[in-house]
């Protein structure tokens, strides 16, 4: 008997039991039409769209940071990256609210430029970027660290700057790492609730006017804020899992592939 394997699989089962139970009841005994109606699918659409945009921003803005942390010893920057995900997530929602409030100088400035976070697509995406970027960075950093630096040092010796080396030498050869980190951070963005339930409870902009993100919709169904109740919340949760699970699994599959 391999006890390590037995204990590990038991611990894994403990993690998965709630998901399996939810899928069973959501797709079976408690299935409710309100849980897979047009409103729920619109909210899943909004979550997918905003998470995809957030990941695109993560790639554009935070890939250089992940590379910097992998190649330069900057422990302060490394520990600061984790802050957004190590505080209770509603705090980020409140912070964005204050940042963009008419009672603060920053808010007056942003509103003067017609930049508003409250119940806008921009606010939703900004919150998702802040919550998913640390996951993206922490996924890309070990990938960069695991790469043999010889080609980069060769390129730098020939005259390429660090940034040029990143874009000309490292990234063209990092498809698996980028895909894996993007999918994992997208899956994190899809699961966000705390911050977006404050800054973007629903979106008041075309093409998602009046639509809430999926996690907020599930909470609304559960709390009775919209018609549905527990049955609808369980069904909508199961639908969301069916959408989010392949993204998370694909991310981990790419991570395994890049390791091999």
């Amino acid at each position, binding site marked *: 008997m391999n006890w390590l394997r037995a204990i590990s699989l038991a611990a894994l089962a403990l993690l998965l039991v709630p998901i399996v139970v939810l899928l069973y009841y959501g797709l079976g005994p408690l299935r409710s039409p309100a849980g897979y109606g047009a409103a729920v699918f619109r909210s899943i659409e909004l979550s997918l769209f905003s998470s995809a945009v957030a990941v695109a921003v993560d790639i554009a803005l935070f890939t250089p940071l992940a590379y910097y942390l992998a190649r330069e010893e900057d422990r302060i920057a490394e520990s600061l990256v984790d802050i957004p995900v190590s505080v209770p997530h509603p705090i980020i929602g409140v912070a964005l609210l204050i940042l963009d409030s008419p009672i603060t100088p920053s808010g007056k400035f942003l509103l003067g430029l017609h930049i508003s976070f409250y119940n806008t697509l921009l606010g939703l995406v900004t919150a998702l970027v802040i919550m998913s970027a640390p996951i993206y960075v922490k996924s890309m950093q070990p990938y960069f660290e695991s790469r*043999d630096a*010889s*080609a980069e040092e*060769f390129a730098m*010796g*020939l005259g*390429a*700057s660090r940034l040029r080396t990143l874009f000309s030498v490292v990234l*063209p050869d990092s498809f698996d790492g980028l895909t894996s980190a993007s999918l994992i951070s997208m899956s994190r963005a899809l699961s966000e609730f705390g911050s977006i339930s404050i800054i973007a409870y629903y979106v008041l902009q075309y093409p998602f006017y009046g639509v809430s993100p999926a996690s907020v919709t599930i909470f609304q169904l559960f709390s009775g804020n919209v018609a549905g109740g527990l049955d609808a919340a369980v069904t909508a949760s199961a639908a969301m899992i069916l959408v989010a699970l392949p993204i998370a699994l694909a991310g981990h599959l790419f991570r395994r592939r890049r390791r091999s």
Partner: protein
Amino acid sequence: MIEAHARRKLGAFSLSADLSDGGFICLSGRNGSGKSCFFRAMAGQLPIDEGSVTVGGRDVSRLPVERRGVVLVTPASSIPHLSVDDHLLWGARLRGIPLDPERVSRVRTDLGIDFQGRVRLLSLGMRERVSLATTLLASPAVILVDEAFANLHQRDGFMATYRRLASEAGIDVVFSTQDEADGRLADHLYLMREGRTEKRF
């Protein structure tokens, strides 16, 4: 002409190496003798506690890697996603050096680069040929070859050709080897033992 004096404590290992010569220079020593550390110190990839690195009379000790004019070539130095043609011209383009197609063609022929395709698909020896030719065409002041001659077919002939091409381009080359007899292929021979250099000729 490269003049390097590097002092550095690396845990229990102590690097205390000196080299001052031009031409085709052999640095011979066993595994763990400190050759790669010394090369990395000269290339700017390993900070030194004391000493200096001078290239052609110019002190480059405080310059970043990309501004030293010193290129370190190891067996893993190639840029895998490039094609052989793009790889060969990559360094020269980066440094803004106009290349005569005849010279490129001659370097290709003389160094036995008669293959095409993506660099990642080549054998180790082929990749080393491409990296060494790329560096030559980029015309740095100094090329440091850390074991990158080791896996080549007809190695002695290749090294003699490389020595000639580097000399024609006015580039100094320092290469590492574990075999002291390789000194016969060089203008100067340095031995390295436990982090210390000793000039033989």
